[in-house]
């Protein structure tokens, strides 16, 4: 029997079981998680505006029919929660309280979840791979407080890893769920583009991003996907395909599944410890009965440059809305009569956006501008076609693809901060899934000698999240990694 104050250690599915047996109440879970946050968040800094935590956004419903039944969930700061500050960890959205809920939040509330008032830290507007670009300062990796938690959903991943959250939502535009999940030793899933509604996700790159779960284990990930997936008339890119019960894919049997191992992911630039650990994980899958073959994704090396054209072009357009008129920050001295409108825009955006945001918006504006559009943007869209075709080819003969999630373990805070290009390369294994829209999951698959967790990435055909859950669950049930927790 877990003591009341240690309920924070449990997974959502364990809590659901206890709630159903009426052994505990949802209030006890919430109190336990809040105590844990008070205990360790001063070290980890996974949450922003943590002082707001005392209040709860919605009173959880107590009907047993609701699967989540008052279990608290932590939400990334770029997903709109009605009346609760949602600032994308940017100065320019300071004080913004959305007048409506994102569709995923609406679905979570309907399922009985309690939305925590403090949101999780992130790189400003999801621009980054380390959570160092947050206006509120960096989050620390629970496994080594001097290291980054990854990004941009670093707060969500660190909160789950540090047991400051039962589970969390992040968003993934180029790896922003999977890479921090790998760095923090937790499970993170990017759904197929169109599987989960983006309505109420503050847009960064609309053709690439998806909201997804970050959880302690694979079963919790499936439970959360059951709740948030599905067609939404408010998002014209959400797809009307029936949502299966993802928890039914967890049956610990992968005999005969065909796994592709792309040779381009195991070359120079891959840390030798990560390589060894990923290869051991692949051997484990083989032992469990999976068949595997080496495959080729020949356009892999072009994924990062293609991404930084398309993602910045879309960001430049999407972030045009932050102009000091409708919401958020307006530069001082640019009120009623001072200067002209354009000066007000420029001053507001110059002061309100952080360094990386300005870099991306200006790059995105440049690649779309007259005279450069064809050379950059149009070329990138065409290479995107080639990258997508690489995957289409492989999925003709494989059920899934397995790779390391990131080429290195978590790096030190500050290590890559001065070199944007070096930081961009941290996403080299995750970006292709966004460019081609396919689903991908990262699960823990071991630790380095220094005790940093490593993630294994599994990718599947569009709308075949069931395959991800099947392989991930079988691996998890036959390895100890998800049961090992950081000491804080």
């Amino acid at each position, binding site marked *: 029997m877990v003591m009341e104050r240690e309920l924070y250690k449990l997974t959502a599915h364990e809590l659901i079981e206890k709630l159903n047996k009426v052994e505990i109440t949802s209030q006890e879970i919430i109190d336990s998680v809040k105590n844990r946050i008070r205990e360790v968040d001063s070290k980890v800094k996974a949450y922003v505006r943590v002082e707001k935590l005392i209040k709860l956004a919605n009173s959880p419903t107590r009907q047993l029919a609701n699967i989540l039944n008052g279990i608290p969930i932590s939400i990334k700061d770029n997903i709109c929660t009605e009346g609760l500050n949602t600032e994308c960890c940017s100065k320019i959205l300071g004080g913004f309280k959305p*007048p409506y809920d994102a569709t995923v939040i609406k679905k979570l509330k309907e399922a009985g979840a309690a939305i925590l008032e403090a949101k999780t830290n992130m790189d400003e507007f999801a621009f980054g791979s380390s959570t160092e670009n947050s206006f509120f300062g960096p989050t620390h990796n629970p496994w080594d407080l001097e290291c980054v938690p990854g990004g941009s959903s670093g707060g969500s991943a660190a909160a789950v890893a540090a047991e400051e959250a039962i589970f969390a939502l992040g968003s993934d535009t180029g790896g922003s769920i999977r890479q921090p999940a790998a760095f923090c030793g937790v499970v993170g899933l990017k759904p197929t583009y169109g599987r989960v509604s983006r309505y109420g996700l503050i847009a960064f790159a609309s053709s690439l991003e998806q909201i997804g779960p970050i959880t302690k284990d694979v079963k919790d990930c499936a439970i959360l996907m059951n709740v948030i997936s599905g067609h939404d008339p408010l998002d014209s*890119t959400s797809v009307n395909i029936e949502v299966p019960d993802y928890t039914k894919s967890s049956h610990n049997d992968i005999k005969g599944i065909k796994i592709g191992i792309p040779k381009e992911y195991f070359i120079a630039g891959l840390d030798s410890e990560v390589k060894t650990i990923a290869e051991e994980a692949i051997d484990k899958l083989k032992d469990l009965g999976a068949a595997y073959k080496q495959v080729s994704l020949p356009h892999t090396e072009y994924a990062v*440059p293609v991404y930084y054209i398309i993602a910045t072009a879309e960001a430049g357009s999407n972030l045009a809305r932050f102009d000091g*008129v409708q*919401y958020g920050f307006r530069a001082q001295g640019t009120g009623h*009569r001072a200067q002209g409108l354009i000066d007000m825009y420029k001053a507001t955006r110059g002061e309100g956006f952080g360094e990386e945001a*300005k870099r991306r918006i*200006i790059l995105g504006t440049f690649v779309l*501008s007259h005279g450069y559009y064809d050379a950059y943007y149009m070329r990138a869209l065409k290479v995107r*076609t080639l990258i997508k075709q690489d995957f289409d080819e492989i999925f003709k003969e494989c059920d899934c693809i397995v790779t390391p999630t990131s080429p290195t373990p978590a790096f030190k805070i500050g290590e890559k901060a001065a070199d944007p290009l070096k930081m961009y390369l941290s996403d080299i294994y995750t970006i292709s899934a966004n460019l081609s829209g396919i689903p991908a999951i990262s699960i823990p698959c071991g630790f380095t000698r220094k005790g940093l967790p490593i993630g294994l990435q599994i990718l599947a055909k569009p709308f075949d999240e069931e395959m991800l859950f099947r392989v991930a669950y079988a691996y998890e049930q036959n390895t100890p990694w998800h049961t090992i927790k950081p000491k804080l």
Partner: protein
Amino acid sequence: MAIDKETVKYAAHLARIELKPKELEKLSQQLQDILDFIDQLKKIDIKDILPTSHILPINNVLREDCPRESLPSEKTLMNAPLKEGSFFVVPKVIE
């Protein structure tokens, strides 16, 4: 390609972002590095390849044209840095 400070300044103007001289200096160098990296895409033959702007085979998603719930103006204005009555206030546009 080489990107000079004037081009960066012009892109910043189009993006309505004010850059301090120091920022412009640093950013021009960084954008140059990024563009040099991006230029590897020129190696690929893209003749006859169609662009992918979107991975889903769905187009022109329409809905029934019927009234539905919308935000009342107080809620629409609740986050405005400056407002008057039911209006957003901006600096003078017409001289």
